[in-house]
C-alpha cells in the first residue's frame, strides 16, 4: 500500500468534486447574452421574476458566442442566444446552428427586424437596431482649434491627421458593418479609395468595435467611429463627447436573437423569445442604459437614441454582406490594400 501514489488519486478524486453537471431543475434556461452586462442582468432578473424559470445567463461578445455555438454544435449547452450584432446570428443560421422559429410577435415588428428573420429563413429575428456614426471629443477639437466633422468625407481631411480611430474589420463586427456600409454607399472601388484616404488620418485600428469612442472619451483620440448608441452611452456618463449621424447617410446593425438547434430547454427558450419581443420589455431597456432602437413597433424608443425616421439609412443588404464569400473578399481586400499602407 505504501508504494502506491495514493496522494495523486486522492487529488484527482477531489478535483472531480466540481464535476457535477449543472442541475436540471424544472423550467430551466441557458441564455447566451451578447449585449452589455447591465442589459443582460436586467433581462435575466425580470424574466425570472415573471416566469419562475431558472435562468443561467452568460455574457459573451457576439464573436465569442458564435465561436462557442460552433464548437458546441454536436452537443449544445446553450438554449437561446439573445442580443449581439446580426451578422454572426446570420452566419449561425446559414450553418444551421440555430433553429427555425416564428415568434407570434413577428408581424408587429419593424421592417428591418422582420427582414432579418426572412433573410435567415426564420432562424433569427431582430431585437433592436443601432445606426453607425462617429463621435468626437469636444475638448480636444476645441484645444486644437478644429471644426466638428459632420460627414464621412470630413474625416479624410488632412487637418484630422492622426485623430481618427476605428476598429479593425478583421476583428470587429462593428467595423465590418462600417466597411460594408461604405461599399454599399459608394461602390466598392470608390469605397476603398475613401478608406485609403481615411487611413492617413487613422492613428490606430483597435481590436474591439466600441474601443474608439472610449478612447475619444478619455482624450486618447479626437474622433472615434462606432455605433451611435455606444456614443450616446458615453455622453450620458458625462464624458465630453458628441455623437454625429453622418450627412451622407449611414448603415446599421440589427441586434438579433436565435434559438439554438438541439436546445435542451426548447419550451423555455420559446417563452424567452416571446418575452424578449414584447413592447413593455423592450421599452424597459432604457433602464439599463441601452440606447438602441427596439424592434417592436409599440415599444418606446429611449430618449437620446438615434431616431431611425430622421436618419438617412441606407438600404443595407444583410443577405449579401453577411454572406461568407463577400465578407472574405472585402476583408482580404482591406488587408491587402489598406491595412499595411504607410501613413
Amino acid at each position, binding site marked *: 500500500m505504501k508504494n*502506491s501514489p495514493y496522494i495523486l488519486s486522492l*487529488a484527482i478524486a477531489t478535483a472531480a468534486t466540481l464535476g457535477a453537471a*449543472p*442541475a436540471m431543475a424544472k423550467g430551466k434556461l441557458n441564455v447566451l447574452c451578447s449585449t452589455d*452586462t447591465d442589459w443582460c442582468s436586467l433581462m435575466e432578473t425580470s424574466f425570472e421574476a415573471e416566469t419562475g424559470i431558472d435562468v443561467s445567463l452568460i455574457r459573451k461578445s457576439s*464573436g465569442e458566442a458564435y465561436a462557442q455555438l460552433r*464548437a458546441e454544435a454536436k452537443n449544445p*449547452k446553450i438554449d437561446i442566444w439573445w442580443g449581439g450584432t446580426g451578422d454572426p446570428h446570420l452566419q449561425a443560421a446559414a450553418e444551421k446552428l440555430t433553429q427555425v422559429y416564428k415568434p407570434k410577435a413577428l408581424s408587429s415588428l419593424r421592417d428591418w427586424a422582420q427582414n432579418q428573420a426572412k433573410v435567415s429563413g426564420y432562424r433569427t429575428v431582430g431585437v433592436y437596431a443601432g445606426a453607425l456614426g462617429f463621435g468626437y471629443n469636444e475638448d480636444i477639437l476645441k484645444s486644437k482649434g478644429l471644426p466638428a466633422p459632420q460627414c464621412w468625407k470630413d474625416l479624410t481631411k488632412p487637418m484630422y491627421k492622426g485623430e481618427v480611430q476605428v476598429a*479593425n474589420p478583421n476583428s470587429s463586427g462593428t467595423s465590418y458593418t462600417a466597411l460594408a456600409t461604405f461599399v454599399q454607399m459608394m461602390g466598392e472601388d470608390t469605397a476603398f479609395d475613401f478608406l485609403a484616404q481615411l487611413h492617413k488620418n487613422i492613428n490606430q485600428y483597435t481590436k474591439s468595435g466600441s474601443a474608439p469612442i472610449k478612447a475619444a472619451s478619455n482624450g486618447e483620440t479626437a474622433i472615434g467611429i462606432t455605433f451611435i448608441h455606444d456614443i450616446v452611452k458615453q455622453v450620458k456618463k458625462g464624458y465630453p463627447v458628441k455623437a454625429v449621424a453622418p450627412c451622407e447617410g449611414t448603415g446599421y446593425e440589427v441586434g438579433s436573437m436565435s434559438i439554438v438547434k438541439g436546445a435542451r430547454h426548447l419550451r423555455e427558450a420559446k417563452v424567452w423569445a416571446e418575452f424578449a419581443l414584447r413592447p413593455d420589455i423592450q421599452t424597459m431597456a432604457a433602464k439599463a442604459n441601452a440606447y438602441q432602437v427596439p424592434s417592436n413597433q409599440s415599444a418606446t424608443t429611449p430618449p437620446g437614441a438615434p431616431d431611425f425616421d430622421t436618419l438617412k439609412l441606407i438600404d443595407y443588404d444583410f443577405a449579401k454582406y453577411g454572406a461568407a464569400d463577400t465578407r472574405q473578399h472585402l476583408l482580404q481586400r482591406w488587408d491587402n490594400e489598406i491595412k499595411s499602407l504607410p501613413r
Partner: protein
Amino acid sequence: MKHSFIPWLLLGWVGFLLMPWYLLEDGFWSFVWLTDGYPTDLYYAPAILQGLLGDKLWLLPIALPLLAPLRLMSLTKNDPRYSRYLIYSGAFGLIYMMGQGFAIGVTGWQFAGLDSLFGELEQQQYGFGYGAMLCGLSFLILLTTGLAARGFLKGDVFVTGSIGLIVALVGVFVFFPVSQVLISAFMDNDGAFAPTAFLGKFFSDNIWSLSCLSSGYTCGTAWNSLALAIMTATITTLLGLSFALVVTRTGFRWKRSLRLLTVLPIITPPFVIGLALILLFGRSGVVTQFFADVFSIEPGRWLYGMPGVLLAQVLSFTPISFLVLIGVVEGVSPSMEEASQTLRADRWRTFVNVSLPLMRPGLANAFLLAFIESLADFGNPMVLGGDFDVLSTEIFFAIVGAQNDQGYAAVLAILLLFFTLSAFFLQRHWIGKKSYTTVTGKADSGAYMGVNHGMKLACYMTALPWAALTIVIYGMIMFGGFVQNWGYDNSFTLQHYQDAFSIGWGEFGVIWEGAAWDSLWTTLSISALAAPFTAIVGLLTAYLLVRQQFKWKSTFEFGTMLSFAIPGTVIGISYILAFNVPPLELTGTGVILIICFVFRNMPVGVRGGIAAMSQLDKSLDEASLTLGANSLMTFRRVILPLLRPAIIAALVYSFVRAITSVSAVIFLVSADHNMATSYIIGLVENGEYGIAIAYCSVLILVMLVTIIGINLSVGKRRLRRTESISHTPTTSSPSFKEKHA
C-alpha cells in the same frame, strides 16, 4: 498487504459494481441519485447493471481485466505470470474502455463505418462518470505495476505509477485536445481536408512580411511577437536578477516590502496595468500632460504599440523572473564564494566567475518563462497593442473576429508553438550537462557575499525606480475604483463598490446583492482547488525528471512543458472541441476549468521544481535510500521539505494565474461557473471601468492576503544554520567578516 496492486484493483471493482458509470446531470455530489432510483435506474446504474439490465452489453467485458488479476493473489512478484497478467489486464481495460467510449456516443455509433457493420444502434451513452473514472485509474495502475514487476525503473512501483499517471493525464488533457485543434490547421472552414490552404495561410504576408524595416508598411505578426518576446525576456531577467541580488546580497532596509512589491504585478488581473499605463502615459495621461505643460512637449501616442506592450509586459513578468531567481540566488552556497575570495578573487571576479555560472539554470529558466509568457500574453497587447499585432491576439481574433477562420488560428498556433519550443531547446543546450549542485548536506555554513559597490549601485538604480513605478501604478488602480469616471471626472464615489459588492439582509440571512459575488466565489473556489493539484503534479514531474533515469525522458519533459507553450486561446477552443462530447464530457462544469488551470500552470511547478531540485545533491536521496526509505518516503521526507520555496512558488503562482488568466477561460466559463476575469472583460468592453477596477482591486487584495498566508504557513526552508550577508565594503578576510555577521 501482499501485493501493492490490490487496493487499486478493489477501486476498479468499486467503480464497476457500485458507482454510477455515466456522468450525472444533477451532479454526483448532490447525492440525488442515491434516493432517486439507484442502482436500477439506468441514469444512475453502475456498469454491471447497465450491462445486465440496460442492454448495454458492451460494458460487460470490462469485468474481464478486473477478474484476471484475482488469479495473482497466490503468486509471488517474481513469477513471470504476475507481470504478464497485470500488463495485459491494464492495457486491455484501458484500450477497451476508451474504444467503446469513442465508438458509441449520444447518437449511437460515432463512426460511419460501424453503422454498416453492426447496423443502427438504438442505445446511446453519455460521458464517463465516477464509475468509469475509477475503473480507468485502476487499469492504469495495474498496467504500471505490471511494468514495474517486469523490471521497469528498477521495479520501483511508485516511480512507474507516477510516470504512467502523468503521461496519461498529459495525454488526455494536453495532447488530445490540442491535436483536435491542430488538425483543423489542415482543414478549410467546412471541415474538409485542405493541405494547400495550410501552405497559403502559413506563408502569408500577414505573418512574415519584413517591410517595416525598409518602408512605412507594417511587419508580420511573427516578427513582431518574436522581437517583443526577446526584448521582454532579456529585460525581465536582468531586472529579476537585480531584485534578487538587492534582496539577498545587500543590506537594503526594506527587503521584505520589496519582496512583496515584486509580487504585486503578478497578482494583477489583466487589462489593469494597461489601463493604468494609459492613464499615466497615454495622450491625456497625467505624466504626459505634465510634460506637455512644463516642457511643452506635444502629447504623443507612443504608448500604443510596441513600447507600451513592452513596458506593460516587463511590469507584469519581472516578478516571475524574480520568483525563479530568488530561489536560485539563495541556493548558491556561500562556501563556494568564500573559497573564491580566499583565493584572492575580488567580489566582481567571484560574482562573474563563481556565482553567476552557478545561477545559470535559474537565469535560463527565468528567460524562458518570460519569453514564453510574452509570446502567450493576451491582455497587454489587447489594451496597448495599437496596430502592433502579435500572434496571441491574432489567434483570438481569427477565431472570434469577423473572419471566423479557425484554420488560420491553428496555423498561427503552430507557429507560436514552434517559437516557444525552440526557446525551450536553446535553453537546454545552454545549460548543458554541468553540475550546479551547491546544497549538499555536507557541513556548509558561512555568510552570503555582498555584491561589490558598482554592482550594488546598478542593482539599486534599476530595481528601486522600477519598484517606485510599480507603486505608482498600483496607487492609480486602487484610486481608480473610487472615482466617478476614471481619467475624466475624478470626484469621489463608493458607487462602484456598492454595485459590485453590496450585501443585504433578508428573511433568511445574508443576501449577496452585488453583481460580482457569484463570479468571485466561483473564481476563488476553483483557483483554490487548482493550486494544490498544480503544485503536486508539477513537483512530482520535476522529481521524476531530475532524479529518475528512464527511457524517453526528454520526450516526457517535452510533453509536460508543452501546455505552457500553447496560447490560452488555443487551449480554450481545443478544450471545447475535445471535451464537449462523450466519453469525456466536461464542458459546463467547474472541473474543466480546474483541469485547464492545472495543466496550463503545471509547467511552472515543473520548472521551479527542476531549478530547485538540481541544486540538491543526490547524495541526500541516496542517504535516505540507504537508510531503508523507499522513493515515495524519500520524496516526502527529504526532497519536499527542501523544496519549500519551489512549493510556495508553485502554489502561489497557480492560484494567482488561475484567478488572473483570461484567454483560455473565455471559452470555458458557463453560466453556472463564471469566472471573475471573463466578467471583468465584459465590463471593460462596455467601458464600465469603475466597476471593473473596483473588482480588480478586490481581487488584488484577496490574492495578496493569500500569498502572505501561504508564505507564513509554509515557512522558509532552512538550508544552513546561518543566513546572513556580509556588509564589509572591500576586504574579503573571513575573520573580519565573521565578526560582522
